[in-house]
């Protein structure tokens, strides 16, 4: 099987974000990791490769530093990588999906494409869908269970309130992975070392005939959300404090 996994190099959610200028952030001093949801995607792809044979190719669109995320995916077992370099910190999802499509099609014919459910930095929640539509492939996102049955992918996703949908999609298709699909493996040390030498094709947006200027969205402003301050600790013994709290919530804040 030839499986492609789209991954993204994002700031660690634990990292502090320092905004720079009107719409940028300090990405030099920030710890970046592979998008956590993408790890479920890579793990699923590698497992399929281990049982069915073939290769797993990880693709990413990002700055040069995104190479690190490709290496960590390859340490988990991906065969090789493709890095489409861009100059800016943020890239519109439409352009991103076009770049992924072009890079994949330039490389080979996919049997399956995995992505993470959403990127934890821009939280756009649409790249997988755009990629699928551009390649005229089925897409199901937020899958937490998957199996191959008779040449089709049968998957499950949660649809709210604990209910689940079971869907079927023909191959090739695009599947967005979320927590619960599997437990991403911790790489073995020899694999981490081997990953440093695995092949990574590099190209720019321009090489694929694309330009970031064609984007139909623009990040106008990026502002830090201040933490709330001035917490009021309601004093007194529990019973009194509770009575006072109910009064505040009912009469002052009017939330109950």
């Amino acid at each position: 099987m030839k499986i492609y996994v789209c991954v993204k190099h994002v700031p660690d959610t634990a990292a502090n974000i320092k905004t720079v200028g009107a719409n940028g952030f300090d990405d030099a001093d920030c710890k970046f990791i592979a998008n956590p949801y993408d790890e479920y995607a890579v793990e699923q792809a590698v497992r399929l490769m281990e049982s069915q044979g073939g290769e797993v190719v990880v693709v990413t669109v990002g700055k040069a530093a995104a190479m690190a995320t490709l290496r960590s995916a390859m340490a988990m077992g991906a065969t090789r990588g493709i890095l489409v370099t861009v100059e800016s910190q943020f890239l519109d999802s439409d352009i991103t999906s076009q770049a992924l499509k072009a890079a994949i099609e330039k490389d080979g014919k996919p049997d399956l494409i995995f992505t993470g459910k959403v990127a934890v930095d821009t939280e756009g929640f649409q790249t997988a869908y755009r990629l699928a539509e551009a390649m005229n492939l089925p897409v199901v996102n937020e899958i937490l269970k998957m199996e191959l049955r008779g040449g089709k992918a049968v998957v499950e996703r949660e649809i709210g309130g604990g209910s689940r949908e079971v869907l079927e999609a023909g191959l090739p298709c695009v599947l967005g992975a979320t927590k619960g699909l599997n437990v991403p493996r911790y790489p073995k040390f020899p694999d981490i070392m081997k990953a440093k030498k695995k092949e990574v094709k590099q190209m720019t947006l321009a090489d694929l005939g694309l330009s970031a200027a064609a984007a139909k969205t623009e990040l106008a402003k990026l502002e830090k959300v201040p933490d709330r301050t001035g917490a009021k600790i309601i004093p007194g013994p529990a019973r009194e404090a509770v009575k006072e709290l109910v009064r505040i919530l009912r009469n002052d804040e009017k939330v109950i």
Partner: protein
Amino acid sequence: MDSYLVVKSILMLVALSAAFSVFFIRVRRLFRLMRSVQGKLPFTLDRVKERLMVLLTDVVGQSNVRRKALPGVAHTLILFGFLAVQPHSLELMLKGVCPAFDPAKWIPAVYGGYLFVADILAALVLVGFAYAIYRRVVERPKYLTLGTDANLIILFTCGIIVTFQFINAFQALLPVHGAAFDYRGAFPVSGLWIGLLGLGRLGAGQIAAGYEIAYWLHMAIILGFLVYIPGSKHLHLLAAAPNVFLKPLQREKAMPKTDIENESAVTFGLGKVSELNWKNVLNLYACTECGRCEEQCPAAQTGKPLSPKNVIHDFKLDLLAQADAILAQKSDAVEPIVREASPITADVIWSCTTCRACEDICPVNIEQLDFILETRKHQVLMQASFPPEMQATFTNLENQANPWGFSADTRADWSKGMNVPLMCDHPEAEILYFVGCAGAFDDRGKKIAQSMARVLQRAGVDFAILGPEEACNGDMARRAGNEYLAQMLIKQNVEVLNQYKPKKILTGCPHCFNIIKNEYPQFGAAYPVVHHSELLHSLFRQGRLKSVQWMKGVGGNGPAVEAMAFHDSCYLGRWNGIYDAPRDLLRAAGSGIRLTELRRHGEKGFCCGAGGGRMFMEEAIGKRINIERAEEVIASGAAMVAAACPFCATMLSDGLRDCQSAVSVKDIAEIVDEATA
């Protein structure tokens, strides 16, 4: 009679040649096996004079063995009695081959004196064994291996002594010819058999026969034993003294630095017994399964499947079972240590808290930790096999340089509003206070760090912290087998330390203290390191800190605390020999304080359960170690227990809380803070 002597001579010659040959061949094979294992150990024989002194005190003086009173005395009796008997047995062997061999004729005075003493010592062996048998039949302590091997050894040795006595008894009854040595009265104890059994009433022929029977029995047993020794745990006869002679002379221990950058290495850590080094193997040979390590082990004592004794024993069995392949240098044919149906299971290797109680108590200085930690290294690096809950910890350490995944940027937030300078702003500070992850992020640890900072400021100490430049010291990762991650963290800190070249590093946590002091030099950063108990105590001695008030009771409102216990941290005490400084500190901080000792304290201190990375692992088997320790604290009657480690403080607090106890836990820094405020 002459023909009998000829037959005896021939038989003895054959028996001796055969027995000694077999013994030699078996020992040689063991020696070769020790040389054939592929593990590397950089070793130079240094401080020979000191080592000889150690041999004198520990082997001759049996000082280490006698740390356990009664069994220690029994062993001393057995050892010396057994040794005492050997020259006479040897004499009898040689005389059996060549009757002309007769030291009694050549050096009668010395000979007589020797026999007299040897006979008494031999009897004391039986006294020792009587106690040993009592232990095994009546007391039956859990940690003592009661198996065929042990029983045979007891049988053999007792047999040797008893037949020795009978030889002597009959010898004393044999007619004395002319100027020959008069054995009558030569054996004060063996002679008693004569009276007891009325041997004197036997006829001359019966006496002669009795002598010969005793002789042959003795030879059979002793030569049989000789042949048996290399295959049994009694191998310790040969291996113990060398192992003690070659033991590491300093208490401090650094984990070996695995060369993970070696591209040609096919494996890291200990995956197969063929990867042991010769010193490991000598350790295995020296073990006599006395079980003292198991008795001290916090895991074994709380129902975990880990027993250091069993680890050593199982490694030895595995090594011997695969000896052929190892001797033939066919390492591919050697099976991995952790394999299906192997007694070395994941629960065994991961239950260890690395407290070193086993290494400390071992009478023959076996280093059990090396086996466990190197096995962990292999499991993590090569198999990515470790308790699943550690994955998040490892990932957090990698991404944010602390095990909980808090933002590395916020590492100095604990000191907000306290005016604590950062090293980058104040690089000439006299002391670099290495706060550690617990001090920076753990709710309990932060309070300790804040107390430390206040106390240092009060004493006018010029110090600074690294803040966001500080990464986890790497101890938990290293002891949890993740050598790659540990080296990454260590190198990160080493780079920062070498940039500042601190005059002195102060640590608030024994784990930071231990690894920075003993293992960072492996990576090129060797700076003077002091633990906060030592520094605070020196501040008191210098008069820079004065105790103004003593500890208020629990909650700050009660009467002053009078009885306090101190919980020895493993990484401070057994790993680095610091037992007195924290106690002296407590006495200095609280004049009139009554320090009570917990039942297991000092070198025998009982671990809190957090070491070896276990702070971040689930404890699902047996009784919780921290509860075991909490119960001990409660039993001591102390109103408060002091700790010198944020992990100990957390484990003790949790344990005491789970026991619904009102006993409070404070770090020594907090106590000093309150006392000098």
